[in-house]
């Protein structure tokens, strides 16, 4: 595995030359400050950019070209970490050695340039029909979270917990934001994204990376150099514990107990918190939550505990019958309380560390995971898999017990199942 970074001032290339996979993978990320942009508009823009371009001006033409390139996989994603707004375009394609066309790689790279540099802004506008088609799609996307009780509870509870913080804001935006968005907003956001974002390009595959870098240097253009520091964490102040119950049309009650966090050390954030998650609620059926909620009391099918340090919160989730809310809460408290005294669980903790090591080995079988790990290491200092393996082994029982003191109960969110017949049918 040969890693190399190419710095072209306004954009950087992170490459990994690796002869392991039959595919090659390129991801192009624009990373800016979420406080300066609307993620609703950005989401629209990124979807629009992969749907049509100046040259492939209909969705059909675009799809035909993708098939000509042996079904190059293409998608975009807009996500947030702290105050960083990531807009990423992913391109996954067959290694050129499996293709008879000798210019295949160049065609793929030309296609990528077309998408990034030549959006379909004919006459500096977007066609009415395309704009309204895309809006319709965006509305559907925005409303989709209501179609699953789990997604609804996740989105709604975060809005309730953080009404005035970026952590509570929906990444897709709201229907109102979308309605207010104009074509000019989208076009302006494209230029804003190019001018005000870091641009980081990751490439992995058995390719001559110097040649690829040369291609990007000659063909890719980004106007300005960005140097602004954008924090990867949001400081959400601690709130008093409170309980919120809501009615829902769903068949199962959703319970989320939030915790807010005191600041973690880097070691705690990178390593201890992962083992903490596994011991409390992410070890298949062996973790504490599963043991109490499912194993002992048969209260649920699925429970989970997770830490989101970028927003300084953590949560326990359970899907259950509303009759079982009180007893489940007691069990969740018991499980959390036990995290203060883990001496007797030394073996279990060691098992989770071994399991995590094994999980990290699995990551080496995915070109996407290897590239992401390298990319986040470069931009944020996230440990490389090798560093994870070395440092996870150093996590002690005491580290975990100390971390338990940094969790403070916050919002208890209960989305109650509907009354009466569970599954109305015509």
């Amino acid at each position, binding site marked *: 595995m040969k890693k190399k970074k190419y710095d072209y001032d306004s954009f950087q290339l992170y490459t990994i030359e690796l002869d*392991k*996979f*039959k*595919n090659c993978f390129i991801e192009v990320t624009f990373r800016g400050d979420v406080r300066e942009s609307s993620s609703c508009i950005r989401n629209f823009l990124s979807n629009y950019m992969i749907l049509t371009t100046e040259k492939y001006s*209909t*969705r*059909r033409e675009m*799809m*035909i070209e993708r*098939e*000509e390139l*042996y*079904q190059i996989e293409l998608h975009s994603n807009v996500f947030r970490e702290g105050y960083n707004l990531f807009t990423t375009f992913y391109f996954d394609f*067959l290694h050129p050695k*499996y293709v008879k066309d000798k210019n295949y790689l160049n065609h793929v790279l030309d296609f990528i340039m077309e998408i990034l540099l030549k959006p379909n802004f004919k006459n500096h506008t977007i066609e009415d029909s395309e704009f*309204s*088609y895309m809006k*319709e799609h965006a509305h*559907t996307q925005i*409303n*989709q979270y*209501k*179609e*699953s*009780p789990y997604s609804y509870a996740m989105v709604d509870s975060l809005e309730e917990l953080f009404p005035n913080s970026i952590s509570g804001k929906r990444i897709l935006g709201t*229907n109102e934001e979308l309605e207010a968005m104009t074509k000019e907003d989208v076009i302006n956001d494209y230029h804003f994204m190019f001018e005000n974002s870091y641009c980081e390009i990751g490439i992995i595959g058995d390719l001559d990376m110097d040649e690829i870098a040369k291609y990007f240097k000659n063909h890719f253009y980004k106007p300005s150099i960005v140097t602004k520091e954008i924090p990867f964490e949001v400081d959400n102040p601690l709130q008093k514990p409170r309980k919120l119950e809501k009615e829902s*049309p*769903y*068949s*199962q009650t959703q319970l989320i107990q939030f915790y807010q966090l005191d600041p973690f050390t880097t070691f705690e954030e990178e390593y201890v918190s992962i083992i903490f998650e596994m011991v409390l609620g992410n070890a*298949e*059926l*062996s973790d504490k939550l*599963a043991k109490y909620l*499912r*194993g002992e*009391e*048969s*209260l*649920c*099918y*699925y429970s989970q505990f997770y830490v989101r340090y970028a927003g300084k919160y953590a949560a326990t989730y359970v*899907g*259950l*019958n509303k009759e079982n809310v009180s007893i489940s809460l007691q069990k969740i408290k018991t499980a959390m309380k036990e995290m203060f005294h883990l001496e007797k669980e030394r073996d279990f903790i060691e*098992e*989770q560390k*071994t*399991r995590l*090591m*094994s999980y990290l*080995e*699995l*990551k*080496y*079988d995915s070109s996407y995971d290897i590239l992401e790990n390298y990319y986040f290491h470069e931009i944020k200092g996230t440990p490389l898999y090798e560093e994870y393996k070395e440092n996870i082994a150093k996590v002690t029982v005491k580290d975990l017990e100390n971390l338990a003191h940094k969790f403070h109960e916050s919002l208890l969110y209960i989305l109650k199942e509907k009354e009466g017949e*569970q*599954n*109305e049918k*015509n």
Partner: protein
Amino acid sequence: MKKINLKGLDEVIYQDECDNGLKIYVWVKPNANHFNGTYVVNAGSEDVKFTVDGKNFEVPFGTAHYLEHYLCSEDDHSPYLKKFNELGSSSNAATYPNYTIFEFFGSNHFEENMNCLLDWTYQKAFDEQEFEKERGPILEECRMYLDHLGRESHSEIQKSLFSVYPSRENGIGTEEDILKISMKDVESFYQTFYHPKNSYVFVSGKVDPVEVIHMIKENQKEKTYPKWIEPKKAKYKEPKKVCRPYFERNFGIEVPRVYISVKVPLKNFSLEEPLVLNIMNLIASANFGSTSTFREELLDSKLAITLGAWVHTERDYLILELSMRTKYPEEVIPIVKEKLNSLEFLEDDIKRKLKVLIANMVLGFENIDEMKDSLIYMISHYGRIIEEGKELLESVDLETIRSVYNEFSPKENCVVVFKPFAKKKDEH
């Protein structure tokens, strides 16, 4: 040990069999960093009626799934999955319509993991208290799926397509079924089907096939099983006609969904099922996929927001399924039905899509875990690994495709519509 070369794909699978009848498949991926072991029992959620030695059994729907749960939980009051955890591995189990799998993923202690897997379903004792403890989680799993559009729509489509096939019923059972399942039902299912002669092991990843096969055979030598009496699974004679031509219901969604499914007897086709499936998927994609003008027009006119098509089989029938998000179900249904009656033979599109299909087949082997699932489906469904898949596709000419196209008839079809509940005044 037999060596199966997947021609043109640079992939090899080794096959062998233990003295007790347990088949072994080993797919070696030398570059992989992990391995997987899957124990497959050829019995699943649709096996509810069977005869053993002249005695008839009928168990409630959900029995196979209940057994899968029980086998995961039961072991001296701690979950069986914990054993894999102790080895630093992950594990899982799942019930499919015709088979049940138990599997682990790991990167160390292969032998210990494999022995643990082979012990997982072996000589299980049934304890009433342990058995009852699983009912609560299963009921919650069932309730969780009630809000799951994909599961519920699949279930209604099956009920519309078929009058007799057990796929009409929910694989994990309804709440009523789950409450009805007794330990005796689960135990008789276990005694009937959980036997090496009705099972196989599939191993993939960075392993030595000779060692793996030797290890499994040694493990099996230590085990004793009762004499295998081959159960006769119920056979179902499904009428050609669809059961429910039109059905609609309300569901917790924002935009209506329309599903149009076509039912064609597989015997109508002169080619073998796997090839028919691939070719019909090409035809469906050319007519309804993202490069079709029909789809483009439908989406441009805003009559539909999405349109998807896929072709699969259900026992003796080929099913072409179209799914749409649309605000105008009543308008869209006749348009799509008309299109179904006048499918086009789009030569250029089909040629291009054939090229894509072959490329995807090559790339598919990069995703070890997904491909492992496909190979297991292939073994359980067709009884063998299709070695010549890529060659077959490469040999397909336009005349072959045209023959399948001519043999397809959309006459028997059904429509399932899911509509949102009416909104209250204060909702938006």
